[in-house]
Each structure stands twice: as C-alpha cells, then as structure tokens.
C-alpha cells in the first residue's frame, strides 16, 4: 500500500521509575486505511506501546524516541467499556459532549449527529430521549457507544486495546464485524492490540508479535499463521484452540 505513514513511531523505548526497560526499540508505521494487529501476552508491552502513541502513558513511565513519530487525529477504545464511561452521566449526554467539543456543533446539530450515530451502530434510538445510564446497557452496547464516540472525532486512526476481550463471543463477533465495516466505510487506519491471534486475524491484514517489550516478528497475517518463523509466534499459533466447522 502506498502513501505516507500517518500513525507511527520509530525506535521507541519506555522505562519505569527504576530505569528498567519496558519496551525496547519498537517501530510501527501505519498508512491510511491499513490495519495492524499488535499481538502478545501479558507484560509484552503492547498496551504501553499503544498508550505511548496517544500520549496516555501511566505516571512514572519515561519514554525515549530515537526517530520520528506521527500522531494523526486518532481515537481509542478500551478493554472495559463500562469503566471508560462516566457511570453517573446519561449515555446520550456523554456522546453529545464528545461531538460538541470535537466537531464544534450547535446543540441541534449535535443531537442530530448523535442520533445518526446511534442508528449506524444499531444502538436503541430511545437512548436519545431517555436518561439511561451506562449501567443499564450491556457490555456490547457500551462498547458500541464508545465506538460511536471514537467515530465522532472523524479519526484517521482507531486504536483498539483488547476491545472485545471482556465481551461474550456472540457480541465479540458483532463488534469485530462492526469495526471492520466502519473501517472499510470510512477508511481509517486500525491498530488493534490483542492477546488472541485468531481475533487479530479477523480484523487485521498484518501482525506484529511482541514479547517482553520487543517486536519479535512481523508480517502479513497469513504468513505469520501458516509459516511462523519465530519460536514465540509458533507458541502463540499453537495456543489457538480451534473449533471444527459445523455441518451446514
């Protein structure tokens, strides 16, 4: 794919307070419309890398970047949708707030856009006229509200941190399909962090495998899954427990 890198970092190093290196020499570059999965297990540094890209590093983590970095207009969705929403503020008001601030719209237009987004994400439209709080929505619905907020920023890149890990499989399937659809529709780039190779393969064209703060292997999804070169990629690929395809 041609074009300039719109989201990326070169030679990223992250350290904790004691000076231990958490992420070592990580380089990532995404062009418009590209999808990259960042895969690894706990402690591999994938979430820290993502957080560094949006400038949301936890307190005490120091970063050094040897090369260039490109931060486009990007939006992020998180693993636990419930905790990413204010539990005491009606869902629709939270969505409107993001639209009003990011798009500088007047109240009438804000409401119209928010309602449009509810419809696009198959969320109940009565949310627009009720004061329902996040607690009264399901996990999948909350995640769709967050995706709606992300879209309202018209992002050039969507950063996803295990967005379906806390969801039931049937809801996970819908959510992954939705992210894919929206990505094709709007052409934003996707950086998708997950521990699950099979999930990454649903959304992404290429993958980067992280272990202990380093990228150990990267390449197209198909190549990585069929002919993994690094021992750790093989371990991850083996850990996928498949289910057979049922008879039609």
């Amino acid at each position, binding site marked *: 794919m041609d074009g300039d890198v719109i989201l990326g970092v070169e030679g990223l190093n992250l350290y904790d307070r004691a000076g231990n290196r958490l992420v070592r020499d990580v380089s990532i570059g995404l062009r418009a419309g590209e999808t990259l999965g960042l895969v690894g297990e706990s402690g591999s540094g994938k979430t820290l890398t993502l957080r560094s890209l949006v400038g949301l590093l936890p307190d005490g983590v120091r970063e050094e970047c040897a090369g260039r970095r490109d931060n486009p207009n990007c939006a992020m969705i998180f693993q636990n949708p419930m905790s990413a929403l204010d539990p005491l503020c009606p869902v629709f008001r939270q969505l409107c707030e993001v639209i009003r601030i990011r798009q500088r719209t007047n109240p009438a237009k804000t409401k119209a856009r928010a309602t449009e987004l509810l419809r696009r994400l198959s969320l109940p439209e009565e949310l627009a006229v009720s004061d329902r709080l996040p607690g009264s929505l399901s996990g999948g619905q909350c995640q769709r509200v967050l995706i709606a907020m992300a879209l309202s920023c018209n992002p050039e890149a969507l950063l996803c941190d295990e967005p379906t890990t806390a969801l039931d*499989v049937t809801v*996970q399937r819908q959510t992954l399909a939705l992210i894919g659809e929206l990505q094709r529709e709007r052409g934003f780039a996707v950086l998708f962090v997950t*521990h699950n190779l*099979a999930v990454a393969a649903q959304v992404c064209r290429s993958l980067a495998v992280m272990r202990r703060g380093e990228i150990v292997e990267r390449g197209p999804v198909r190549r990585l899954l069929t002919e993994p070169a690094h021992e750790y990629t093989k371990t991850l690929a083996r850990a996928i427990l498949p*289910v057979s395809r049922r008879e039609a």
Partner: protein
Amino acid sequence: MDAVLELRHVHAGYEDRPVLEDVSLVIPRHRVVGLVGESGSGKSTLARVAAGLLAPASGQVLLDGRPLSGRRDKAACRKIQMVFQNPEGSLNPRRRVGRALEEAMVFHGAAARGEAREKCLRLMERMELPADALDRLPRAFSGGQKQRVALARALAVEPELLIADEATSALDVSVQLKMLDLIRALRAERSLTILFISHDLGVIRYVCDEVVVMRAGRILEAQPAGDFFLRPQTEYGRQLLDSVPRIDF
C-alpha cells in the same frame, strides 16, 4: 450409567433473583462434562449448587445416588473439589503451600500424617512445579503456577468430582494450553470426573467428552462433544459455534 452427580429439576437463585430454572444434568463417572454459556447464563450458580455451596429452592442434587445436603458435610467436601478462575481465592496468602496441602490431606484422611509430605512432593512434581514449591507462600508463584497449585490443592484429597469454573480463563494463552494439557493428562492417569465450565468453546472442545449449553438459567442442549461440534441441536448452539473467531486458510 454410573453417575457421580445428578441434578434433578433444580431451581435455585439468590434471595429474590431466581437463576436456575428446571435444570437437570447427569455427570457420569470418569467423564469430562463441559458447561458452556455466556455471562449471566447461570454456569457458576450451577457449579455452586453442584458443589453443595448453594441449596436449591426446589429439586434434588444427588451425589453417588444420595441427596446432597444444603450444608456441606465433611464427606461431601472431600468428594467434590473446586478450582476457580482466580487461584488466590482458594489459597491462604499467609500459609506455605506445603502446609496447606498436608493439612487438607490429613484432615480428609487422604494421607496419614507421616506420609503427607512425601505425597505432596510427588504431587508438586506431577504438576511440574519447582521442588521448593511446598516451602513457598502463594505470592511467590506466577499466575500459571498459582493455578497449578490450586489444582494440586483440589486433587490432594482425591476427590470424586472436580469442578473447574473458568479455571484457565485468566491465564495467558500459552500458559492456558499448558494447564489444559496437564488436566488432560491427569484425567487419564487418575480417571477423574470433571465438570469443566468455560465460555470458550475452543477450550471445551480440547478437554471435554460432553457439552452442555446453558442460556438464561436453562440447559438448552446436552450431547457428546463430537456431535455438538458437528451438529448443534439448537439455534443458540449454532450461533455460539459460529461466533468463535476462526482462521481459515
């Protein structure tokens, strides 16, 4: 068929919130029964009823053909052991692993005081835990090791039925695979009977002989695993199966 545990028309729940509705289930001896369902389907409530931790509002729970009383007596405790998603819940943080295991063995008569230590050592070795594991506190283990310690604690009293409630769900995928391989091997060696609860159909397929699908407090279908994965009997079973992310190349 020789059933270790049987639930007959069980209704159960908490205070004013009913969860299980008319649940009947047979767990045959030496079989691994997989219980699958999404959050809120009642899987864990069923596990609590099966373990005698929650008395049913109506219906019967039979252990070896005899009614299981609502309050766990000592014999039932020994016969039914559980492993949970979070191993910390079943390990006392201030007690060395060896002492916890030996005490459980002696209390339940699974070993005489003199031979308990030796038995624990062999168990640790079988769990592929380091030799000094018995002298450590639970916090000195990684997540995967801790879960193997919890499994050792459950197996130490030689139960008739092991209930594993999302026992590998919090582990990293490669660690999960190791743990599942261990469960498969132990199951063959010790002829264990297991009620294996998971939301992950890939995991269920890897370890279970039978599949029971739950939704909204009811059992929708129950059949041998081989049949379920080819021909689920219900629309919901098909939906679950089709939702698992696949890699098709």
